[in-house]
């Protein structure tokens, strides 16, 4: 067996405990330094866009919450906003508020999962992961009260939300709003000044602002590079225009900033939820829309700020009960574009850190 000093190519195969799903990377290494990276994905392709051409507009809601399985409500919200724009439907106010509540709760869940797995990849052996999942369980119980399912929710319909929240939802919601800030304090105490975390993530995997814009990234990745762009502020949808919240912006664009932006976004989501608690009106939650409705011929594109970035739906209608074409602009796939330039020059041990800080969900990449 001879040891050569030329670059070797190894395959970080589709099954690996740390790739957040089935993702394959062919990495060329020179010693410990990464020289070239070739991502290969498509292992989770289920044909969502083709299936959407066979189903009616209401049935596609069930397809959308399986794309990014960690943030189902936000996928639903993006889709129904696109359908409403296409068909010109309007939504009652209580429906909009319930959508925002569900969306922000789902954003908290998604960021908790991202943070937990990021720390697991760093080697903290599951303790922060378990704490984050414990809080996620409480929020999933809220989802069960709203719509009967925890992960694949199918809660929203074109024209609003399918059913109002039950009476015992509101006390539990209040309990979560009261207890979650203490948990965030605990996580911050556990992690923010931890020297080992700082050494492992500070200055690693820098994405410059110009490069972030050129590669069309969005979401926390873009904001951590210093660009203040959030679709909830720039193109407000639902009731975001009336709510008061800030967006966290990073300065360096390294992995530490991406991680910290997500934690601060959880706090901002809690602020939004507090305002929704006080502002929510009563009334119907769904405008009367028939099950098999036929939008006018035309096309439209609508996007929202999901937990991973800008999630957009482009729908083309030919006047029938199902769309002619449904194209999804998935943020995780577009955020993978600068992966190569972020990884070159770093060591093997940094690969998992950088990839984990991008927070890619393979269900969304492959659809």
């Amino acid at each position, binding site marked *: 067996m001879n040891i050569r000093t030329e670059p070797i190519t190894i395959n970080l195969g589709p099954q690996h405990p740390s790739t957040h799903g089935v993702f394959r990377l062919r990495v060329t290494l020179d010693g410990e330094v990464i020289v070239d990276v070739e991502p290969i994905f498509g292992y989770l392709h289920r044909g969502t866009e083709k299936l959407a051409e066979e189903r009616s507009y209401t049935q596609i809601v069930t397809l959308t919450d399986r794309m990014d399985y960690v943030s189902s409500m936000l996928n639903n919200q993006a889709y129904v906003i696109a359908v409403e724009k296409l068909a010109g439907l309007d939504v009652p106010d209580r429906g909009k508020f319930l959508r925002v509540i569900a969306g922000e709760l789902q954003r908290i869940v998604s960021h908790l999962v991202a943070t937990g797995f990021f720390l697991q990849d760093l080697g903290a052996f599951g303790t922060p992961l378990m704490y984050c999942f414990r809080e996620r369980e409480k929020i999933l119980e809220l989802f069960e009260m709203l719509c*009967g399912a925890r992960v694949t929710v199918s809660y929203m319909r074109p024209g609003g939300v399918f059913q109002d929240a039950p009476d015992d939802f509101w006390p539990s919601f209040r309990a979560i709003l009261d207890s979650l800030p203490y948990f965030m304090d605990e996580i911050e105490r556990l992690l923010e000044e931890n020297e080992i975390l700082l050494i492992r993530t500070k200055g690693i995997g820098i994405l410059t602002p110009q490069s972030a814009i050129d590669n069309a990234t969005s979401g926390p990745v873009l904001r951590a590079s210093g660009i203040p762009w959030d679709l909830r502020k720039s193109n407000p949808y639902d009731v975001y225009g009336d709510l008061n919240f800030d967006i966290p912006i990073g300065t360096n664009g390294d992995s530490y900033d991406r991680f910290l932006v997500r934690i601060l976004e959880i706090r901002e989501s809690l602020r939004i939820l507090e305002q929704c608690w006080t502002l929510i009106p009563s009334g119907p939650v769904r405008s009367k829309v028939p099950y098999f409705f036929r939008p006018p011929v035309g096309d439209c594109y609508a996007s929202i700020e999901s937990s991973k970035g800008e999630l957009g739906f482009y729908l083309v209608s030919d006047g029938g009960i199902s769309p002619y074409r449904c194209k999804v602009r998935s943020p995780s796939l577009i955020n993978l574009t600068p992966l190569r330039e972020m990884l070159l020059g770093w060591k093997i041990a940094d690969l998992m850190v950088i990839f984990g800080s991008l927070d890619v969900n393979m269900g969304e990449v492959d659809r």
Partner: protein
Amino acid sequence: MPYGIGILKGMMVTMANFLRKPSTVQYPETRLKQHPRFRGEDFVWYEERCTGCASCAKYCPLGIIKIVTSGSGSQISEGEKYKLETFDIELARCMFCGLCVEACPYDALHLGSGFERARERKSDLVIPLEELRSSPKRPSTWFRPQLEKKNHNPFEGQTITWSDVARPAIQDPDYEDMGKRWVDDR
């Protein structure tokens, strides 16, 4: 700020969590409670209310429900129902989205409340008509606000008969407005 202080703070947090009660329970001795709106696996079907219209089969995104009625050969007059021969629900592919429950105009089909329906053969996972007839009637309150008003909780073992499960009379939609919107303006 001394150098190791972040690590020490982290260790204090872990120790505080060590001294709390664990948040997991031992299944199957202790089972966690679900909300009455939980979309469970056993379907609840009231034969007295079902007319064999097959709206549930039409709305299902996956085409799981198979309904075969016999209606030809005899004149069906108003007020009578189709005679159902087969009503199969394939649980192996069902995703419990509840669109069939949303579809049923007569509140005959409801979602159940269990989740422990594992079987050893795939063919055992189809719910045939006899099982739908004979299973205990504990419907989940998903999409059934009338059951929620009655504080029905399927997990406490309350069964409910076909006459109690009815929706109150729905207001008719504004036909003129709907006609204008969906027919005239198109």
